[in-house]
């Protein structure tokens, strides 16, 4: 690798690590394709969002310290998730408010962390991707990405470059899918009602595939679609952009 390349660390996120490694490999392919030198630091685990949103600041801060140290050496840190990137960018500095040294470090990481599609478009200026996929799709804006990081146009710009793909908007794109991390377990009935509302909108939109940038939301939506027997497939946007669709869509049977 030449030293002139942008040094990027992939923060793969716990959900992608555990459930859908193909998203991580797609992210690496996209960034390498754009000329980045991508590393995957070995000590990474979780960003601490589950504990933070459950009110446990102490454990969250301990996890955050480790994340900050793990990703100290890189020009950029990129996560294929708006909510994990949002946690690091928006909430780490809050966790360390008034804590000398760590507050500065958290701000420093906050300035280097990006969600994948935002990194590709806003930092690298990628306009063309390698993907080819023939389907009528729609994009669901995940709440944290949309409202904490302002991610709206970036994935759509990139998807416009995928050959054969037709992307349409659906009514529920900006409305929460009902996942909400532990919310979907703690208040599962409300969560299910919210998810059902999205599924109804998706079904009436006539799309064949749902795309998004956050695996939590996508697993929730896919889980409901599959339970209802829907044929709409669900994938992370990175898989389509990188042309890595050999693995079955989320929740689909392996042939």
């Amino acid at each position, binding site marked *: 690798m030449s030293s002139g390349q942008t040094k990027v660390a992939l923060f*793969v996120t*716990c959900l992608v*690590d*555990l*459930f859908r*490694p193909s998203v991580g*490999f797609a992210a690496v392919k996209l960034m390498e394709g754009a000329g980045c030198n991508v590393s995957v630091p*070995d*000590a990474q*685990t*979780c960003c*601490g969002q*589950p*504990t*933070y949103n*459950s*009110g*446990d*600041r102490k*454990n*969250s801060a*301990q*996890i955050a310290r*480790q994340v900050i140290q793990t990703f100290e050496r890189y020009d950029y840190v990129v996560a294929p998730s708006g909510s994990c990137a949002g946690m690091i960018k928006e909430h780490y500095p*809050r966790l360390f408010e008034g804590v000398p040294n760590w507050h500065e470090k958290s701000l420093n990481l906050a300035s280097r962390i990006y969600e994948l599609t935002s990194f590709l478009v806003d930092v690298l200026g990628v306009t063309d991707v390698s993907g080819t996929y023939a389907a009528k799709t729609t994009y669901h804006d995940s*709440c*944290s990405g*949309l*409202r904490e990081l302002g991610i709206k146009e970036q994935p759509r710009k990139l998807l416009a470059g995928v050959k054969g793909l037709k992307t349409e908007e659906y009514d529920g794109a900006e*409305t*929460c899918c*009902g996942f*909400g*991390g*532990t*919310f*979907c*377990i*703690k*208040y*599962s*009935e*409300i*969560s*299910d*009602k*919210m998810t059902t*509302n999205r599924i109804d909108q998706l079904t009436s939109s006539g799309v064949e595939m749902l795309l998004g940038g956050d695996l939590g939301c996508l*697993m929730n939506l*896919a*889980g*409901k679609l*599959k*339970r209802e027997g829907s044929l709409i497939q669900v994938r992370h946007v990175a898989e389509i952009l990188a042309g890595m669709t050999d693995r*079955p869509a*989320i*929740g*689909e*049977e*392996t042939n």
Partner: protein
Amino acid sequence: MQVTSSSFKENTRDALLNPTLQNSLKRLHTGFVSSRARAAARMPEFELLRDQARDIKDHVLAHLDIYLEKFELVCRAHGGHVHWCRDENHAKDTVLDICRKANAKTVTKGKTMIGEEIAINDHLEANGIEPIETDLGEYIIQLRNEPPSHIIAPATHVSKEQVADAFRLTHSDLDPARNLDEPDYILAEARAMLRNRYLEADVGITGANFLVAETGTSIIVTNEGNGDLTQTLPRVHIVLASIEKIVPTLLDATALLRVLARSATGQEMSSYTTFSTGPKRETDVDGPSEYHVILLDNGRSNLLNSEFKEMLRCIRCGACLNHCPVYGAIGGHAYGWVYPGPMGSVLSPGLIGLQNTKHLPQASTLCGKCEEVCPVRIPLPQLLRSWRFLIHEQGLTERKFNWGFTIWAHLAKRPKLYKHVVGWLVRILALVALNKGRYKYLPGLKAWTQTRDFPAPQGKTFMQQWRENVDV
């Protein structure tokens, strides 16, 4: 009002199974949400107005004592009475005292959330004074003997058939065969019934959208004009207001009015914006001969000195309720107290304690839609999180979740252990899935798999595969 927030989960279940409520929630969403969007789009400077509204409220909150005292001084100079009330009971007794001195038998009421907060109707009734709601929505829920389900549309959960039923039952002197199929007929009947009550009433009670320190004025906005009749016809007018309703000047009030109706209903202005300054003067043709303002604290001074201070910016427009997907799923009653939706989930624990209300800050996906539409830019998701911090620190979280998070945090802080544990876990899970790609049932995730399939992992973790590739 009885607090039922602690049975939030049961309330939720009832709400989700109530077809009338579910129908009305759909209407509410499409109506208010699209109206607000159009109103905001029509006004290029809307975002700047929101900044201005936030700044006015922040300025007031930083100098609340000064503006309240100024209000009192000017209001008294105009012949009004100002009553400082620490809490609910203090306010209720003060109102009752004023009513008794006026020999009141009936009291007409404009819409007031402070009236709900202190449950003034129950108190008046218990003491032989009949309160009559004059806002149509409030009138309907008074007849149905239930609390409001929305802070600006109190009867939004009621269908027009249910209204007709309530009218037939209560207005028993009228022809039982009369037509109440159309909202217009219902409205006409309510107007006819209420007209005499306005004239009979000895006291009129209203809320206040704003109190103006500079002029000693209380301002209410309504769409029915009922507030005007409530406050000008009876001999005594009582204004129920909480201390954060104060604004420095009329100019500030108009700045806030510009974002209030647009955020609430999408109107540029409410149909009526009524300014009351003191009792009737010699030169006035009408108006009350006594004008009282109740300044209620009821826990707000404590909020002012806490991390929840920004909540006191709230101007009660209801936009956060209208846009909240959780409110949209369960409606207002499930929240179990006066203030529902995101604003209620932040405010209620501050006013009636966290013990009874601990579900409210937790029952949110923190999607941020509320903050996106709040006219005074209250950081509602972060304030919900702040309550969660306190819930955790006070040990009020459910034990099973606590265990889960403790284990997760323990692993997340130990990358080597984490890799072993999740590596094995994922392998086992993938084996169990048998190429089906998802589970219909997973022990420990029953809450999910009851209504949704749970997608299975692809196989090895990303980190395992990455290491294998690198090592080769």
